[in-house]
Each structure stands twice: as structure tokens, then as C-alpha cells.
């Protein structure tokens, strides 16, 4: 269905090709999962399938890409729209019209399908993806999962045989991600669609994949997931566990891993209660931010209702919950961007004050926030001037911010524009400019969206170091694996309330939605991370 023959892609100005001599064949009706480190060329490979590379992005493509018998050399993307459906990473950025129904019809209008067929197909797709209730809703009012399903529906109406998805679940909470993935797997199983999907959060999707396509250093390998994961540069925790313990065949699902570890668990189930994984925090630090009976509202809606939360020095606390549960609003209130309707917020260990009264250097010395769109904080033309302006504000020694950046992400050229940094590097830069003022409290809103597994491990280490230096960290995230690695405590919010609060091991292990993969495999033995589990199993066998 999709065939790459000796394909190399070189962007203008690049010293070496992004993809070189790629030969790849994906047969009809398969769900192929594309994995690789950030910046390895995954998006380039995806966009080459429908001709956006090179017709739209520029650069040179040698070799041949054919989809359903049509070559991209002779057909620009618009003439492949009835064969390939391409859903960009942020579905909102690809929407052309303003309601769900019109969006579904747009692609068909563009290729001139007759009105009767259009009407019928729109109704079919509305039912297939469970969008019928939303048909005349404005696209702006949809939730993340609904937007993603609408985007998938909008390319399906032209009846393509191939669907290309660029990280369809990266911005979604676990529930919404399940909803989207269920829809995708139904398309593969019921309609025989061929799907090629890139994804960072492998733990969610590995179970659905028929084929793994690994991109590494411009080279591409493809094959059954069980074989290729043996040495793939990224792997979900359950596979990583199998790799480190030398299990064969490699487990791809929780069920595989549980059966592989069954004998060990049976032998050690009775010792489960006796082996606490992480030592409890010895002495809780001073309270550095204190919200009491906090209620924040937008118009008639209370986004945060009667929340009591204390942040202590030296801890990493994760804030979890569905999209729209009030996580970002709580953070905005903590830093004084949002005035509370009721209750109070105080920040600072000595002489606590209301953050809405602070500004400039007074504010950034007490509390810092890395927002979801971390790049918003950057406004200078180079990395160096960005760091210098951060130093200047708090009268830090010139070069302090740059030194922090060097520690977080070594080897960044300070003369380049922040936009040219990779996702992980940009996050490091934002952290550096926030950290230079040494705020007691650091708030992070969805910090790991664009990070791959190695990137997340490095990030978890950075958080640990910051906590050890006495910073208090509150991090909103959907990423249960990151929480397992990095957080001491977890707070779960739902509909503006705090519904669970406590040490990570207690809170996430008991929740089916928020438990990390390793916890599910090892239950009832308490272990959260791959390292925990490996240590336990290897330790007991010696």
C-alpha cells in the first residue's frame, strides 16, 4: 500500500540527509507504528507519504514514494487527498471551517464529490466516530479527544485507503487517548484501513500495532514489534523491563509481562507489604505556597472549587486529572495570574504574600511557572540575549542563566534563535530563565509533551536535583510514567476538586487509570519504575 524505494530526503542548508536510502513497504490493512527519538525524521517520513515532503516543505527527495500505485513525484498532496488522509499533530491548526459537520464535508467539497454522496458519507462518519451528538458544535468548544476524532473524521470522508497520524494522543489525558485509539483500531479492523502513526507515548499504542517502523540516524527498519523492540532507541516501560531482565519473547502488553513474571510474583507476594519502594520523605520542608479554600471561577463556572493545597520545599508533586479538571487554573491562581473568587493564596516561606500583589523581580524570586506553550516565555532573538535579560531582571551575575542552561542541556550554541532549538532544548532554556531567579516554587504545566523516553529520564533527573536543592515543584501532567519516575507526591483533580492526594506509590498504584505499566505488571508487589522492579527481581534471585 505504501512503498518507499531508495528514498533520501535532504533539506536545503542541512549538512546530511534527514532520511537516507529508505526502503519500506507497508501492506494493506496494517497499523504501523513509527518510533524514534525526537528529531530523528519521523515527521519527515510521515509527510513524505502524501507528498507534503518535498512539495510543501522544500528540500530534495530522491528515490520514489508510491501510495496505492500513485507516485508522489507526479501527484502533489492535493491530488492524493482521496488516497491519503493526513492528520497533523495539533488538529486545531488544521481546521478550516467552524463546525464539526462542515469540517467533515470540507475535504469532499474540495475534490468535487456529488452532494448526495457527501450527505450520506458525513452521516456515516459521524456515526463511525461517535460524533453525531456534536455535529453542529463549534470546533473551538470541543475537548481534546473530540477534536482529534473530528480531525480523523474530516480526512476519512474522502474515503482514503491510508491514514497518516502524527502523535494523535500526545496532548490527551489517558481517558481521551483511549477513546481516540479505540476509534483508530476500529478503522483498521472494520474498514481495512492502512494506518501509519507516529507516537511518543508508546505504552498506550504498542498493543494495537501490527508493525513497528524504527527511525534511527536517518535509517529505517521495519518488522514485527516483538523483534524490533530488542534494540529500538525508545521502548515503553513494559518492554524496557523485559529487555533488562532478558525475557524472551519480549513482553508487549501488561498481560505478557504478568505471565512472564508470574513465578517470581507468586514466590514473593507475601513479602509485598514488607518492601517499601521509596523511602518516605524524612523531614517535610517548610511550606512555600499555601492555598486555602481556593475557588476560582470563569463567569458562572467554578473551575477550581474549595481547594486546600500546601507545597513544601524539597518535594516534587504531580498534579493529574482529565483535561479541563482545573489543573492549569489552579496553577494560574497560585502564581497570581487569576484572582480567586473565594479563599486565599500565599507564597513564600518567610513573610507569605498574596501573589496577585507581586510583579517583576519580586514575583519571579518567589514563584515561577513554565506554561504549556513554553515558548511564550521567550521573546529575544538569541539564546544568549534571552539568558542575559533573565540575569538582568534579578541582578544575577551575568552568565548565570547560561550556566544553568549548560547544566540542563549541554552544548547549545548561544547565538542561535530559540525557535531553532529542539523541543527538549527549548524546555531547558525556559527552565534556565525561570531558575536563574531561584524561585522557591516552580510550577510546570505539561512539561514533557514533546520529549521521548531518554529525554524524560533526563528531565526526571533534573526535577530530582531541583528538589534536592530545596525548590518545591508542582507539575501538571498526564504522563503516568514520568510521575512514577519523578514525583514524591501526587494530587488528582476532577471537576475542580482534589479527589486524591498523597505519596505517589499510594495514589497511583490504586488507580486503574493512573497506574504506571510497571505497577500493573508487579501488582501486588509495590514497584513503580523499571529500575525498582529490576532491583527487586534481581536482588531476590541473588
Amino acid at each position, binding site marked *: 500500500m505504501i512503498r518507499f524505494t531508495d528514498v533520501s530526503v535532504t533539506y536545503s542548508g542541512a549538512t546530511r540527509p534527514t532520511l537516507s536510502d529508505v526502503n519500506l513497504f507497508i501492506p494493506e490493512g496494517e497499523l504501523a507504528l513509527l518510533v524514534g527519538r525526537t528529531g530523528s525524521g519521523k515527521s519527515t517520513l510521515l509527510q513524505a507519504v502524501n*507528498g507534503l515532503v518535498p512539495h510543501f516543505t522544500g528540500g530534495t527527495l530522491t528515490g520514489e514514494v508510491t501510495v496505492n500505485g500513485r507516485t508522489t513525484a507526479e501527484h502533489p498532496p492535493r491530488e492524493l487527498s482521496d488516497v491519503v488522509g493526513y492528520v497533523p499533530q495539533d488538529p486545531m491548526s*488544521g481546521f478550516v471551517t467552524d463546525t464539526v459537520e462542515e469540517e467533515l464535508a470540507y475535504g469532499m467539497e474540495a475534490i468535487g464529490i456529488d452532494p448526495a454522496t457527501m450527505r450520506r458519507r458525513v452521516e456515516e462518519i459521524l456515526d463511525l466516530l461517535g460524533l453525531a451528538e456534536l455535529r453542529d458544535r463549534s470546533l473551538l468548544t470541543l475537548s481534546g479527544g473530540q477534536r482529534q476524532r473530528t480531525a480523523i473524521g474530516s480526512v476519512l470522508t474522502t474515503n482514503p485507503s491510508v491514514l497518516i497520524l502524527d502523535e494523535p494522543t500526545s496532548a490527551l489525558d489517558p481517558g481521551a487517548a483511549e477513546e481516540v485509539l479505540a476509534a483508530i483500531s476500529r478503522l483498521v479492523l472494520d474498514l481495512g484501513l492502512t494506518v501509519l502513526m507516529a507516537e511518543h507515548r508508546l505504552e498506550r499504542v504498542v498493543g494495537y500495532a501490527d508493525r513497528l517502523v524504527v527511525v534511527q540516524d536517518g535509517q529505517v527498519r521495519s518488522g514485527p514489534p516483538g523483534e524490533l523492540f530488542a534494540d529500538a532507541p525508545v521502548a515503553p516501560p513494559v518492554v524496557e523491563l523485559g529487555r533488562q531482565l532478558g525475557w524472551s519473547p519480549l513482553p508487549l502488553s501488561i498481560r505478557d509481562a504478568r505471565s512472564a513474571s508470574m513465578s517470581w510474583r507468586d514466590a514473593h507476594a507475601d513479602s509485598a507489604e514488607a518492601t517499601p519502594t521509596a523511602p518516605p520523605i524524612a523531614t517535610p520542608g517548610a511550606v512555600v505556597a499555601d492555598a486555602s479554600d481556593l475557588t476560582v471561577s470563569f463567569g458562572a463556572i467554578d473551575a477550581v472549587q474549595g481547594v486546600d493545597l500546601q507545597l513544601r520545599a524539597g518535594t516534587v508533586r504531580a498534579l493529574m486529572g482529565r483535561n479541563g479538571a482545573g489543573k492549569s487554573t489552579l496553577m494560574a491562581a497560585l502564581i497570581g495570574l487569576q484572582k480567586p473568587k473565594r479563599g486565599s493564596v500565599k507564597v513564600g516561606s518567610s513573610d507569605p504574600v498574596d501573589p496577585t500583589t507581586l510583579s517583576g523581580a519580586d514575583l519571579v524570586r518567589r514563584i515561577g511557572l513554565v506554561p504549556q506553550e513554553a515558548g*511564550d516565555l521567550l521573546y529575544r532573538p538569541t539564546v544568549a540575549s534571552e539568558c542575559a535579560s*533573565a540575569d538582568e531582571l534579578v541582578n544575577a551575575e551575568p552568565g548565570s542563566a547560561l550556566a544553568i542552561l549548560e547544566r540542563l542541556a549541554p552544548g547549545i550554541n548561544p547565538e542561535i534563535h530559540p525557535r531553532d532549538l529542539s523541543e527538549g532544548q527549548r524546555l531547558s532554556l525556559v527552565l534556565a530563565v525561570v531558575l536563574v531567579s531561584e524561585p522557591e516554587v516552580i510550577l510546570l504545566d505539561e512539561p514533557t509533551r514533546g520529549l521521548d523516553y531518554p529525554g524524560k529520564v533526563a528531565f526526571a533527573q533534573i526535577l530530582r536535583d531541583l528538589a534536592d536543592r530545596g525548590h518545591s515543584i508542582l507539575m501538571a501532567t498526564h504522563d503516568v510514567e514520568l510521575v512514577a519516575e519523578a514525583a514524591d507526591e501526587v494530587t488528582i483533580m476532577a471537576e475542580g476538586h482534589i479527589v486524591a492526594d498523597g505519596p505517589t506509590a499510594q495514589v497511583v498504584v490504586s488507580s486503574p487509570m493512573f497506574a504506571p505499566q510497571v505497577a500493573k505488571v508487579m501488582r501486588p508487589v509495590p514497584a513503580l519504575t523499571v529500575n525498582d522492579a529490576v532491583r527487586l527481581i534481581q536482588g531476590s534471585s541473588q
Partner: protein
Amino acid sequence: MAVQARIGRYLHPGAWWVWALGLAIAASRTTNPLILGLIIAVLALVVAARRPDAPWSRSFVVLLRLGLVVIAIRLVFQVLLGSPIGTTVVVTLPTVPLPSWAAGLRLGGPITLESIVFAACDGLRLAVLLACVGAANSLASPSRLLKAMPAALYEVGVAVVVAMTFAPQLVSDITRVRRAQRLRGRPDRGVRGLVGSAMPVFDGALDRAVTLAAAMDSRGYGRSAPIAPKRRIADAAMLLGGLVGICIGLFGVLDSSASGTTGLIILAIGVVIACVGIWRAGARSVRTRYRPDPWLWPEWAVCACGVAAAAAVFATGQIDPEALLMPVTPLAMPVVPPLALLGLCLAALPATLSPPLPIPRTLDRQHRQLAQEVPA
């Protein structure tokens, strides 16, 4: 039965525009404040009856307010610069002597009641024209209007639609970036705040534009049937020529000092040429339309009502030109010519002739639930 009658639809936006333009043409031919007042009443009645609940449907009120500003400006200019009409002096302002090169102008001097009334009526006419545009905007959804555009103008239409969706996103971007500026401890207001937020906002907008273009390209935007360059030039020439004809014709019709019939003829020729050009250019687009708004008898009826108003005022002008003007010298009470009154009454009919609005789906569901619960 009552429930059956409430299953409404949106009237074709083109019909609302024809109706509103009819009233605008009527308004442009008169300074009689009674006729102008009647036109505003008609507009308000229909807008109140058939305005959907959407952000753009507030534009009628906005443009009414703008109309008040226009009247005020017109009065100020008349008082300061206008030459006096009539003899009823209200107040005499001190005259400012002007240099010899401005000999034709006069600053200050006696202000007469006649000139104030004249200026107010003249300003009112402009205000009513604005109100007509506002009413059309309130009644007809801009995105539906763009969907109804002929195929040749489709690409322009998409650009406008995209711009319309970008505007609210830009506003939310600005808010977000301003908050980020505060987080960096920088001023989030004033000129310095603006400079700091401009770059991230434009960066974001540019990124989004590029992503959107890629998405549109991969969804088939811009597919077209092959066409000879000669034919394309001919089509473009016809379109342009037709539009020039329409402009000249409209000028002739609206300018009450010129002969109306010549203007009408040029206008008609221009419309025909432009229509042929649009139709020929549209033939090369492969695009089809999803659920186009139908054009049924209510659309014809609403258009006819608008045309009737214009025709009635036009005819009144032919029979008794004085009746359309505010009698200024000497000042007198204006009268409403019966023919114009009849025309404007017809123009108010769309308040009941046009189909009722559909009930929004979510509300609809609540209604149905209520209906089910009531008997139990």
C-alpha cells in the same frame, strides 16, 4: 403541531442582503426624516424577529451607534464650516478670519435652525445606510454567505473564512503571551509590554498559517481542472469589466442629481457581464457544495419585499420629488407619501414571511425531555 411549526431553517444569506440593499437604496434617495425613521423601524422589527444568537448578530446595534456618531460629526461640520441656509438664526459664533487662499471657506458665524435641520437629516440618511448593512450582517451568517459565493470567488472566500477564524485565535494568543510576559517579570501593559508580546504572537500566527496551509493542501484545496491561459485572461477581463460597469451604474442610480434610467441600464449591463464572467471562471473549479442553503419561495418573497421598498421610493421620486426631501426653506412638517409608506410596510413582512430560526440542538433536546416529563 406547534412543535412541527418550530422546525425552522436559516434563510439564504443572499436574500437578506438583497432585502437590506433594497432598503438602503430607498434610504439613499430621501432625506425625509419620517421615511428614514420608518426604514429604521422596519429594520429593527425584522432583526428582532429573525436574528440568530451568534456573535456577529450584534452588529445591528453596533452600527446603529456608529450612525449616531456619523450624525454628530455631520452636525459639527455644518456648525463650524457650513454656509448658512435660511434666516432663523439660533446663535452667532465668532467668525475666525481666514487667510486669503481659503477665501471660499468660512469658520464660525451665524448658525441657522434650517442648516441644523438640513445637516441632521443628511446625517440621518447616512446612519440609515449603515443600519441597513448592520441589519444584513445581523441576519445573515458571514460564513454561510461565503459558502454561497460563486465558485470563481471561492478562493477569496476561503481566505476570508480563515482570517475570520484567525482573529479570535490571535486575541487568545495575545492574552496568553501577555500572561507569559508577567511570568518573566516584565511589564505586561503599555508600549514595552506590547513590544515584548509582539514577537511570540506573530511567531505563533505564522506557524499556524504554515500548518494550516499544509493541512489544506493535503485535503485537496486548490484542485482545478486544466484550462487554457487565453480563456483565463478573457474570464478575468469580463469579471473586471462587469464590476466597473456595476460601479458606474450604481453611482448613476444612487446620485439623485443624475438621471436614474441611464444608471439603471449601465448597472444591468454590468451585472450581466460580471455574472457571465463569474460563471465561466467557476467552470474550471471541480468543487461541489455540501448542503447548500436552498433558495425557495421565502427567499424570493424576502427579496421582493426589499425590491418593493426601493421601487416605491423610486416611484414616489418620479411622481412627487418634493415629498422625498425634508422641507427646509421654509421649515415645515414633512409628510409621508402614501406610496412610500406602502412599500415600507411590504418591507416589514419578512419578519413573518421568512422561516423561523432552527432551535439549537442542545436546547432542542432539553425541550424534548421536558415534553416527555410533563405528562408523567
